[in-house]
């Protein structure tokens, strides 16, 4: 079952679309679920399909099409490091290596305590700040150095 908060957010979203085109809200609905629990489980997709009156396969198509939907647990804070060319020139590979060592996980994995997940991402249009990562697709942190990363991780750990 979708939580009340998620349902309320979806309902708000639905007001933007004609009543007979509820499936327009599918991307938002997936996002709300991921905001709440960090990832989207199979049951969540089934629930969304029921809620929006669309085939579950159609929800699955959308959820698998976009990389920013996590279909497996990716930790409470998912760090997505851009590894495209500009960021690589700016030291993104070193950033990834440092994060891997620091968190003890590989790309596409989450820490055992479920706090952090590490992903590789595509260009976020902020090459000037390279190297950079986003936190759970919401907040972008640029000009990363080992010290700055340590500080961010500590802050996130305590939040």
């Amino acid at each position: 079952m979708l939580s009340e908060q998620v349902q309320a957010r979806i309902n708000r979203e639905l007001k933007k679309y004609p009543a007979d085109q509820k499936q327009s809200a599918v991307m938002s609905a997936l996002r709300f679920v991921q905001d709440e629990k960090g990832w989207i489980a199979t049951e969540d997709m089934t629930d969304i399909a029921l809620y929006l009156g669309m085939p579950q396969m159609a929800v699955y198509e959308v959820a698998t099409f976009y990389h920013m939907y996590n279909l497996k647990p990716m930790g409470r804070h998912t760090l997505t490091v851009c590894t495209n060319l500009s960021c690589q020139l700016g030291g993104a590979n070193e950033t990834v290596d440092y994060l891997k060592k620091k968190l003890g996980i590989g790309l596409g994995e989450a820490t055992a305590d479920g706090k952090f997940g590490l992903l590789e991402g595509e260009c976020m249009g902020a090459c000037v700040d390279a190297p950079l990562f986003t936190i759970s697709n919401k907040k972008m942190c640029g000009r990363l150095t080992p010290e700055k990363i340590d500080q961010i991780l500590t802050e996130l750990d305590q939040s």
Partner: protein
Amino acid sequence: MINIEIDGKQVESERGSTVMDAANKLGVYIPHFCYHKKLSIAANCRMCLVEIEKTPKPLPACSTPVADGMKVHTHSEMAVKAQQGVMEFLLINHPLDCPICDRGGECELQDQAVGYGGSASRYQEPKRSVMHKNIGPLISTEEMNRCIQCTRCVRFGQEIAGVMELGMAFRGEHSEIMTFVNSSVDSELSGNMIDLCPVGALTSKPFRYTARNWELSRRKSVSPHDGLGSNLAVQVMNNRVMRVLPVENEAINECWLSDKDRFSYEGLNSPERLTKPMLKQDGKWIEVEWQVALEYVANGLRQIGSTAGADQIAALATPHSTLEELYLLQKLMRELGSGNVDFRLRHSDFTADDHRSGAPWLGMAVADINTRDRFLIVGSFLRKDHPLLASRVRQAVKHGAQANIVHASDDDLLMPVMSKSIVAPGELANSLAQILKALAAEKSATLSGEMQKAIEAVQPTAQAVAIARSMASGERAAVLLGNFAQQHPQAAQIAVLAGQIAALCAAKFGYLGEAANSVGGYLAGAVPSGKKGMNAAQMLASPRKAYLLLNVETELDMHDPQQAMRAMYAADMVVALSAYKHRAAEYADVMLPIAPFTETSGTFVSSEGRVQSFRGAVKPLGEARPAWKVLRVLGNLLGMPGFDQDTSEAVLGEVLPMKDGAVSIAGKLNNHIAGVAVQTTASSNSRGLQRVSDVPVYAADAVVRRAASLQLTRDAATPCAVMHSSELLKLGVQSGDTVKVNQGNASARLTVRADDSMPVATARVAAGHPVTAGLGAMFGAITVERA
């Protein structure tokens, strides 16, 4: 109309049509994969690129609308280069190992690669691979590697089957056709996706690697299952049916087949086939020669006829039997002096028999369904009982028609339903009376005095009024009676009321035929006429001394199997003409092996009154013989006149004489019932549960019951007892518990499932299935208790 030129040839095409349509009209072939005339346009394979003058780049013919003066070249340098380029890209990830592919030899990609591709590949890099997934017992995705992402299967699900079970997950190079996480494809039309697949990605699980396309000979036939009469291509190798494919017939099945029609052939090769005549002697079955068996039958019939009277002999046949078989059976019975013959085995109300003006039929052509704008569908498990007809209703609804339902069960029809009245079976007639009353008010029409009086007391509910409004607002309405309505104990009244509703809104009124020959049985005269002879219910209610069973599996095919089995056990002689060894072995004295539809010639008259004859596709198995021949020889042995037909065509000629080289039966079809009084009782409020029974789609006839792959589908799962959750609460059981279902003096243990769309005070318990075969009538009181 718009004039365009394709490869120098002029063609007129409708405004809004595409270059592909125009080319098809002209007979110019443009290669394509994703384009299919019955599906929406995707334009994603790019194979149909053509050159159009005054455009700088090649354009896809399937999605380019025609414009006046357009000049199209399908073989110009630009077009050929484009086609070759697209083909090279399509083959990048497609394995180039046609000889080991199941589709090899009948593959659109293979053919077009030969026609439009290069002779060698320049691509040296690794190809992508896609893991196969299990999506059910009918469709294999073993070679998903071969998929070219045309999405025909996806669009078929969305647009024709009405349910999107396959989709394209992931993206770009990682795109994959798959179902939702670990789901199976359960649509009753799923097999069509195999036909649609232009490559070997979706293949038929039962057929895979059993034969090559070029080894098969193709024989035309007609589906023996539902009343639609789908045209089949039966493919044969070494005198064995290997596969069944559709034969395109726009007026009937278009280019589709239901899974039942497509995969039921497995039942033809079942190990349960009866291949030798058998006699029971001292309780033991022995194989005998035909002559011995037939003489035994003739003697037995003669003896019982002379000692106990001919009216002690009764004949029952399934409506899946051919017209010729039904005709000779009734002729044999009437020559014996008995009128006890019937093919309506699951019916329970025969009061309309003396009041009919003709054989009940669909009331219109099948293709007319697409043109209706209002539907009232009464008592029908439409999707499962008539899969392709349901699809036509779905298409009509998609184009703005409104579907209204009166039924005892609220199954998902995979289409929007305008209004529905879901009531207990006993309330079905009442519900129609309400709609009739509301409709009369809506239309300010006056009904006949009798009818007016009959519906005086009913109070239309809100649903009834909504249905009446919907029906009244249409211009081309249709009222259709399903199997459930025809099997109902008040079938005649339901038909009269439905007929009245149809008359008030100038609608077409029709019966959805339960089986291939539901209309043909009437034309063959395989029904009692007047006071002479008993109908199916009477023959069993007052047991006869001898029964002739044609294709009948008593415990599965009858309205009240309990009563029927009692009659069989009590009879002095039971002769079972059957293609299979079945429970007749317990009660019969003789079993005569007869040929199923692929092994005999014959005729089916479909719901819409289409007379379709077919020939045998293979020789009868073992010593099985076509039933019409068996009956003819039996007639000869009994010294009866008129049993000297040499061919099934000669029999057909007797039933339906040819006039000017064509058979015309239009005058014999009439749905009008005169003189049946309607009594609407105020709701009876009986305290017990009423049984609602469907015949599961893959349990409807002897052949499909033995089709191994169909029996593994979800539709063939062991039936549950389905009830409203408040009934479960009363019983103190939960969904998933086992309950004991009692009817008459027998019971069945079933899993119970809660479904709040069921009317209260009803329990849905399927008929036609071995686990419920011991129970009584398909309608009426039933009790459920904790097991």
